[in-house]
């Protein structure tokens, strides 16, 4: 029972990171209809920015994450302008190829600039706290609470602010959005910025538990794609629920079956969902 609860906490912590990263991917898909394969690379760059802000400049952890989110928002907007905006009228395969290009570019860039060694990100949240007889890593609690706070902020932004509403409007009807005067260009840039910032926050939260290295985004890339397909492309609740489902399935099958199976379970899940409900759990008939 104690093992179960321990793993449940681990699963929730991992799920909140997956959920954050998948949210960014699903937002970009909803607005631009681009499957952004470079998302994992943005996640990786986000982790490095936090790492250097912490280690080289001594900026406190939480502030470093905020800084990383801002830097990545700028990176995301730049990529949208330089790579995806010029392709806006091109066939979809061009977006895919361009996104893979961005992925390779960022990974190789990270290797050249920062080397390929694995780095350990120090976090001020070390040690464990005892909750109901369980020893829980402080960092895991930080991951869970920070992720939930960011998700709640994103939700309020999307539902309660005019810029947030423009994102929803474009997702639901592009023509309708331009007929009320919404500039799809500006919304595309904003969405890319938010998406990259979410990836940065997710990566920076989990980095002290895992490690920072140039290809750290690749495994995540596969997972977040599985999550948003599982949850329904473009669906926000789908990304969150899908993130938690995948993480819990991974953690529990690693614990009770085998570690290798834990890594594969997500894709088993995905196959089952695609067979039974090909449009995803929270699809809106896209």
């Amino acid at each position, binding site marked *: 029972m104690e093992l179960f609860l321990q793993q449940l906490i681990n699963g929730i912590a991992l799920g909140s990171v997956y959920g954050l990263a998948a949210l960014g991917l699903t937002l970009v898909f909803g607005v631009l209809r681009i499957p952004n394969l470079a998302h994992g690379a943005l996640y990786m760059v986000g982790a490095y920015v936090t790492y250097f802000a912490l280690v080289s400049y001594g900026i406190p952890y939480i502030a470093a994450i905020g800084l990383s989110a801002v830097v990545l928002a700028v990176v995301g907007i730049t990529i949208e302008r330089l790579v995806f905006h010029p392709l806006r009228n091109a066939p979809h395969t061009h977006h895919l190829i361009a996104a893979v290009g961005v992925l390779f570019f960022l990974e190789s860039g990270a290797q050249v600039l920062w080397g390929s060694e694995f780095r350990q990100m120090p976090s001020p949240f070390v040690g464990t706290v005892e909750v109901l007889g369980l020893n829980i890593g402080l960092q895991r609690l930080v991951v869970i609470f920070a992720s939930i706070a960011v998700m709640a902020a994103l939700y309020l932004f999307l539902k309660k602010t*005019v810029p947030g*509403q*423009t994102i*929803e*409007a474009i997702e*639901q*009807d592009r*023509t*309708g*959005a*331009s*007929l*009320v*005067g*919404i*500039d*799809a260009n500006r919304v595309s840039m904003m969405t890319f910025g938010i998406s990259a910032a979410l990836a940065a926050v997710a990566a920076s939260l989990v980095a002290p538990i895992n490690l920072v290295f140039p290809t750290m985004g690749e495994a995540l890339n596969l997972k977040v794609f599985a999550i948003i397909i599982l949850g329904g492309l473009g669906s926000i609740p789908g990304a969150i629920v899908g993130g938690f489902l995948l993480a819990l399935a991974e953690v529990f099958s690693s614990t009770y079956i085998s570690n290798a199976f834990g890594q594969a379970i997500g894709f088993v899940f995905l196959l089952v969902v695609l067979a039974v409900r090909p449009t995803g759990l929270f699809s*809106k008939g896209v």
Partner: protein
Amino acid sequence: MQKKREKKMLEVSDLSVRYGEFVALRDVSLEVDEGEFVVVLGANGAGKSTLFRTINGLMRPSAGEISFYGERIEGRPANTVVSRGVTQSAEGRHLFPELSVLKNLTLGAYIRRRDRAGINESLEEVYELFPILREKRRDPAGSLSGGQQQMVAIGRALMAKPKLLILDEPSLGLAPLVARQVLDAVVQINRTGIMVLLAEQNAQAALKIAHRGYVVENGEITLQGTREELLGNGEIRRAYMGA
């Protein structure tokens, strides 16, 4: 001459639009004057929607000009045409189906989003015009009936405080009673001074309420005139009124 030109608030001249090789509109000229209610008659596929989409910037013309209050607007992105004062309830309505009626309407006022008081005033006007929308304001727009969705589409187009309201077949697919209710509302809108450009297949109903009309066939304007001229035209009676 100069004075006469100034009166034409919307002036479309020699407009042509192509879909690849297919010519959807050929040398179309049309105008709407201050306060006018103008109807565009024509069968399915005649080019009415293409004309409206091009005026609103959703399509680019291959030739010709569109000017509004003397300012050229052809080929501009749709979102900038709205702020010039031209809004449209388009074919297919293009509502935001998962957002509430209220949010749909509020987004209609996107170009004047900082004018909180003005937005609330416009909301009240829309609710007065279509009282059912006040009742349904919390419901997702996609859950409404066809007629109610059309009301949301018209209401949303009004929320931007347009000078010219373009309506692409608002009565399409509606029950006769609801269609009449919608067209009556359009008449009321026009009485407040907003110019109306309406596409309709039901010539009888449309000519009853419009000041002037055009007939579009195969992408060309084949006939135009005042309401009386068109109502008295035998060809129109035969082709569009089944009489």
